[in-house]
């Protein structure tokens, strides 16, 4: 089927089987491999993308559902001025080890800060509770989101 949607700020039209998973479409057809897959069943958050600004799991979405939507993947977060404040904070805080969870974590944090611009530490933990990290132990990830809050304020 023909699908029209906005991907990282650009209108696109493509032809794809309507039942291909969005994660496969992004990674294989569109070569946007920043979006990761690990569990394929909603448990880990590594496949998180933003759809109309809300975090969604691209392993549990079919291509047809993209029709008319606005999608942001990790590749679309930075702008001409440079990295998004959340990305910058992840770098500064050292919140990245292997990096596999990072795209999903960053996008989940962007969604959280959109809803709650000044979250407490426990609200940050709750907001990222759908995203698993096998490496960092989460402290630095939470630090990074806190840092991003203050950066956006300042």
């Amino acid at each position: 089927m023909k699908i029209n949607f906005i991907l990282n700020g650009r209108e696109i039209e493509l032809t794809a089987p309507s039942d291909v998973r969005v994660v496969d479409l992004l990674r294989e057809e569109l070569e946007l491999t920043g979006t990761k897959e690990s569990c394929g069943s909603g448990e880990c958050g590594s496949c998180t993308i933003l759809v109309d600004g809300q975090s969604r799991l691209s392993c549990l979405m079919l291509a047809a559902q993209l029709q008319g939507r606005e999608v942001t993947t990790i590749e679309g977060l930075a702008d001409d001025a440079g990295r998004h404040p959340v990305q910058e904070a992840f770098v500064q805080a050292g919140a990245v080890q292997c990096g596999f969870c990072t795209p999903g974590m960053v996008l989940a944090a962007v969604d959280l800060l959109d809803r709650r611009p000044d979250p407490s530490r426990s609200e940050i933990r709750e907001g990222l509770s759908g995203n698993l990290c096998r490496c960092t132990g989460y402290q630095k990830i939470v630090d990074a989101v806190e840092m991003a809050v203050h950066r956006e304020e300042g």
Partner: protein
Amino acid sequence: MREVFLPRTLDELWDLLRRRPEAVIYAGGTDVLVKLRAGLIAASSLICLERIEDLQGVRDQGDEVYIGAATTHRTLLADPVIQEHFPILIQALSVLGSPPVRNMGTIGGNVVTASPAGDTLPPLYVLDAEVEVRWSDGAKRLPLSQFILGPGKTSLGPGQLLAGVWLRKSADYNVHHFEKVGQRKALAIAVVSLAALLKVSDSGRIDQVRLAWGSVGPTVMRSGEVESALEGRVISRETLDQAAALAQTAVSPIDDIRASGAYRRTVAGNLLLRLINYAR
């Protein structure tokens, strides 16, 4: 390839269901797409409900509130009418899955999945929810407790849709309490859960009480016996201990990968002890 349809109106949906009676319906897909990938269900085509306006959102109808079946958990959590009148539903939704699962999953999907562990179900049972079922040329309304027949089983017939959930506003209860015990804090399927609505008088007496447990039987469990043991009594450790003992005999939990039946039985009773927090 399986075709995926995105009807925009109920009329389009009825038409599709006529042409593709075998199609699998989904809303958020957080149950269906997991099962499909795991090979637990098969589908030759899929119909996604997310674009049907009629199935979306919360409508305040005065004494009653109507929730469209395809309303996401996130939308419900942010809804002022739900926040004001049904805090027990808010408490349950806020521990359902994880933020992205709440962004995608819907109340209709949770109800039709009819899992004994479904987090919206104990609150909906104590709130005496009714469901609206529609088909191409008809509609009916029935109590949720009659709609859900067993684990994964509802009374939906072929070509029928869960259109929405009806809740009656009530000022009767001043305590709304939901607690879920899982194996971890987030992304935890309930091992046992308890929804409790209480009317507690100024002197701490329980004037009215409604209780429902999740994950301790084939469907959500209610117990008139335990409710009677609490009604008219002042909240105290002794009263709650007695009720807990009764609850432990009333439930019929099973062993599964998450917990043993014996553990569930103990916890089902012990969750009542938390009501001590509402003593005056």
